[in-house]
């Protein structure tokens, strides 16, 4: 047996070494070839960047093929393609490249971000680049910006494809329920009737799923003839039809069983639920789901018939256009070549092949009306409906502040995904926007941040400090031996000392300086504006999300830290026994904590899924005995149960703390407990009077570490809930990240960071003060 273990260990070790060597080789080769591949020769190199979201592999392949075709047609031009993955990663990388002054030549741009990027001067005007009339006007206009409003002015992007939206329906289910199939001008009444009738089929069948993304919500409002923005683009929530439409939606979802599903909250892709054949209708979606839906087998192979119906009408017929464009950098070193590439990418050939994929609708009118797109043989057969909808379709233009749509989405989520009161959501959103508008941050122009002065001051300060340090070092009456020792000491401690200045002190100071700026991080540091303490003012006085995130984080801290530590200590006490198999149990309890990270978050996403997740499946029968239902952790009941879900997850990870407690328990001399035992103390008393006091410093240490750690919860929230629904799980650090990298507000995020620092320091100081003994100086040479 021992031989076997030994062999196994050697094999594992060998594999690890081989893997490491291979990994270094691979990475080394890659980096070296990057360094050495400077000159591309005399060919022009263009950089193209895109993402592949809904299209996945296929979209990626199409772009690849298109670019290869371009290269063939234009020898002398080499195209380098970058695909960072999903759109989230994409924009972060784009932002970075722009700030570094090396943006791609041609790249995807979505219409919501046109104002931000155009104002930052990162998009080249494209009016001259193509013949605009040949394209669908609403799609093109989405990419116009006149400096204040979207929809008109200079053209900054050329739409590569677009889609209108509607519902995809399961024709087989419709027939089974005896409901007539939807017409192109069907109404919401038709919709809900169909959903109800289909839901009555029972057997796990649901009527429909409506997604409630911000721009979809606006489309829903448009079908009732109303919008949240008025003609000038200002927020106006006064029209009662807004409330009634949304309330109706809320009621459908929460007051009726089975009619509507709530799958989206789970991070689950609702379109894929449609594929199970148990959903009557799904949407409103655009064309992008078609490639995936085309994998549905026909009826005689166990699948079902499906088709597309445009957005139902309310008092009006309305639709919304979603579109992505190709943009161009104004600083491209090869503008004509880039423009040619751009034209190619939105040209006829490309649009035809993309259209055959079924992913989206070509923006070139001629291609759209050809059979490249319209093909009744292939599902969905109702292709024309997409095009016809263009007539009453608009692009959902948002105010230039990128946070508007996200906040709107969050507030709507509160009602539409968790069932909370609509009026409070609407007024909350309205209030938030009013406050933001009224805040000085939104309006005034601020002076540029005086970086040069700051740099000069810092350099002077550093010199002064340096002189001071040198003087202190020179002075003092030290013997040569002591001096030599001191030099050695500083030399050895040098790595940390340098790190202190470079990676800690410097950044902290810079962070503070940044917290007094308004800066979007897109341009170089020089574009930062000095705003004094306006960021802090806004945080404390107006920012409701800030307060929410504090609440969420505090809730978590109060739950997770005591619970976690008590659990860890209890586990350590249990596992301190010297019984057979204790080794195995210790390993079992400790193992999960090494798995923390993305993998674990993915796992727990499925554990906490409301409908069919591991936990709820286990809880359902138990709670059912009491007539209760398991909570919808990250959906309807997220406000109350969202954070506890994370705290529960944290319990799974206490292995590390447990080990430290175990070590501490080992260090308690056995005699103490024995003496107490002889003195008649029972187990609990012994614990309280001997064990706990002896563990004091360790409890404190672990507690503080846990406290600090709990303020930094990020990965789980990012992956599992993205902070939602609403802000129910918006941990502080997640909010910070959002502000910095999603909303391009680096100054504000820095202010948030500083507040975090102060809070943590205060709390830690408080904890330390109230417990006195912590730092031991034993062993220090006097």
């Amino acid at each position, binding site marked *: 047996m021992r031989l076997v273990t030994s062999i196994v260990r050697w094999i*594992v070790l060998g594999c690890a070494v081989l893997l490491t060597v291979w990994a270094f080789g691979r990475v080394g080769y890659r980096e070296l070839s990057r360094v050495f591949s400077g000159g591309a020769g005399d060919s022009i190199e263009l950089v193209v960047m895109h993402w592949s979201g809904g299209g996945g592999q296929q979209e990626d392949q199409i772009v690849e093929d298109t670019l290869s075709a371009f290269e063939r047609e234009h020898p002398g031009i080499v195209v380098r393609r970058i695909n960072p993955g999903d759109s989230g990663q994409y924009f972060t990388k784009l932002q970075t490249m722009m700030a570094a002054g090396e943006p791609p030549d041609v790249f995807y741009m979505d219409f919501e971000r046109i104002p931000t990027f155009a104002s930052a001067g990162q998009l080249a005007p494209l009016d001259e680049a193509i013949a605009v009339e040949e394209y669908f006007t609403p799609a093109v206009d989405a990419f116009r910006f006149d400096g204040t409003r979207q929809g008109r002015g200079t053209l900054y992007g050329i739409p590569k494809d677009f889609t209108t939206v509607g519902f995809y329906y399961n024709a087989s289910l419709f027939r089974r329920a005896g409901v007539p199939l939807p017409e192109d001008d069907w109404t919401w009444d038709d919709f809900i009737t169909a959903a109800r009738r289909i839901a009555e089929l029972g057997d796990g069948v649901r009527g429909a799923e409506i997604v409630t993304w911000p721009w979809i919500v606006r489309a829903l409002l448009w079908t009732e003839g109303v919008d949240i923005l008025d003609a000038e683009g200002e927020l106006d929530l006064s029209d009662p039809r807004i409330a009634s439409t949304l309330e109706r939606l809320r009621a459908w979802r929460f007051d009726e069983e089975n009619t509507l599903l709530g799958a989206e909250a789970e991070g689950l892709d609702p379109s894929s639920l449609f594929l199970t054949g148990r959903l009557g209708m799904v949407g409103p979606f655009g064309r992008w789901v078609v490639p995936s839906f085309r994998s549905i087998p026909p009826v005689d192979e166990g699948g079902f018939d499906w088709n597309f119906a445009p957005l139902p009408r309310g008092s009006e017929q309305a639709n919304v256009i979603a579109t992505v464009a190709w943009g161009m950098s104004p600083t491209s070193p090869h503008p004509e070549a880039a423009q040619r590439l751009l034209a190619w990418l939105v040209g006829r050939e490309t649009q035809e092949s993309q259209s055959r994929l079924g992913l989206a609708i070509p923006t070139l009118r001629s291609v759209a009306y050809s059979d490249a797109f319209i093909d009744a043989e292939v599902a969905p057969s109702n292709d024309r409906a997409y095009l016809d909808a263009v007539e009453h379709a608009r692009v959902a233009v948002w105010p230039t502040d990128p946070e508007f749509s996200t906040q709107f989405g969050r507030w709507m989520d509160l009602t539409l995904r968790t069932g909370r009161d609509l009026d409070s959501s609407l007024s909350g959103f309205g209030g938030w926007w009013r406050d933001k508008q009224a805040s000085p941050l939104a309006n005034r122009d601020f002076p540029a941040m005086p970086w040069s002065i700051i740099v000069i001051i810092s350099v002077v300060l550093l010199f002064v400090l340096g002189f001071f340090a040198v003087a202190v070092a020179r002075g003092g009456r030290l013997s040569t031996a002591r001096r030599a020792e001191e030099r050695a000491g500083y030399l050895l401690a040098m790595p940390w000392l340098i790190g202190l200045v470079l990676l800690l002190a410097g950044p902290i100071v810079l962070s503070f300086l940044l917290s007094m700026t308004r800066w979007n991080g897109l341009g170089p540091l020089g574009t930062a504006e000095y705003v004094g303490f306006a960021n802090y003012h806004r945080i404390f006085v107006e920012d409701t999300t800030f307060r929410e995130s504090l609440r969420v984080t505090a809730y978590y801290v109060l739950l997770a830290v005591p619970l976690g530590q008590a659990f860890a200590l209890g586990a350590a006490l249990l596992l301190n026994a010297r019984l057979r198999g204790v080794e195995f149990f210790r390993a079992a309890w400790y*193992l999960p904590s090494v798995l923390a990270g993305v993998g674990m978050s993915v796992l727990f996403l499925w554990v906490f899924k409301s409908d069919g997740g591991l936990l709820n499946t286990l809880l359902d029968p138990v709670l059912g005995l009491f007539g209760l239902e398991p909570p919808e952790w990250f959906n309807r009941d997220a406000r109350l149960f969202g954070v506890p879900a994370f705290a529960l997850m944290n319990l799974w990870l206490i292995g590390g703390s447990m080990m430290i407690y175990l070590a501490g328990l080992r260090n308690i001399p056995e005699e103490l407990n024995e003496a107490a035992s002889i003195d008649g103390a029972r187990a609990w008393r012994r614990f309280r009077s001997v064990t706990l006091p002896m563990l004091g410093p360790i409890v404190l240490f672990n507690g503080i570490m846990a406290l600090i750690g709990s303020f930094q919860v990020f990965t789980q929230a990012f992956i599992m809930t993205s902070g939602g629904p609403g802000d129910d799980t918006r941990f502080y650090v997640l909010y*910070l990240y959002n502000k910095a990298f999603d909303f391009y507000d680096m100054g504000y995020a820095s202010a948030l960071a500083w507040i975090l620092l102060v809070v943590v320091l205060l709390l830690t100081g408080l904890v330390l003060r109230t417990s006195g003994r912590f730092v031991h100086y034993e062993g220090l040479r006097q």
Partner: protein
Amino acid sequence: MRSSRSNPVWYLPVSIGALLMLFPIWWMLVVSLKTEADAKQSMSSGEMLQVLPGNPQWGNYAQAVSEVGTEPVTGFLDALANSIVVTVLVVAATILSSSLVATAFARIRFRGRNGFFILMLATMMLPAQVTMIPLFLFFRSLGWVDTLLPLVVPAFFGSAFFIFMYRQFIAQIPESLFEAARIDRCGWFEIWWRIVLPLSRPVTAITAVFTFIFVWNDFMTPLIYLHSEEQATIAVALNSFRTQFSGIEDVHLLMALSVVTMVPCIVLFFAAQRHFIEGLGSGAVKG
């Protein structure tokens, strides 16, 4: 506190706990081995408490691995290689720099030592986010964004937590050993290399294991700095995979890939467990 309860009573809570701890992982394994149809089925209708995989689809793993990124398989290999390189470098750098600095704090007398030590303890309380943005800007100005450098280089400057651990440990090494070395004409650098490092194997083991696990699973830092597929670490690649394969029909693939990312940590865990138990076997100290 040596438990003097009788066996069966003790085994009960301990086993339940172990079960709770291990079951999610086991479940993940089970799902990862189902066919697409079965996985879909079990997720939506809740009949997923199958304890044993009936029809193990090992091919799921191959498929998941090949679907990472845009190029088949290379996406995964890149992520794997990147993770390995970063982790190994950071572990080595942390051990070397932390033990070096700790030697100075523990055994060398220099003015300001106590002050710096307290300062270092204070920095342990610092949330990483305070320096996150400026560091990002700093590395950006160096052109290091979208490379592995920002993940690796900071480790060479010591880590307060491990400096503290090393320092506590080194402080326990008898002074006379150092004095003997000084008399034997060892410079401090040599003392660190030839005496402190070999003696502090237990701390080194702990440092290596903790650092490995932390870096391998680290998500936020790579998220901020790495954008291209080529540079992604496993954590980031898994997240991208998740966004692409979030449907219920892909859950088996998602679980399979998650298991793959967890394997090194599990292996390390089993290997290192013994090492923790090995005590200080030195005979240099009295008794």
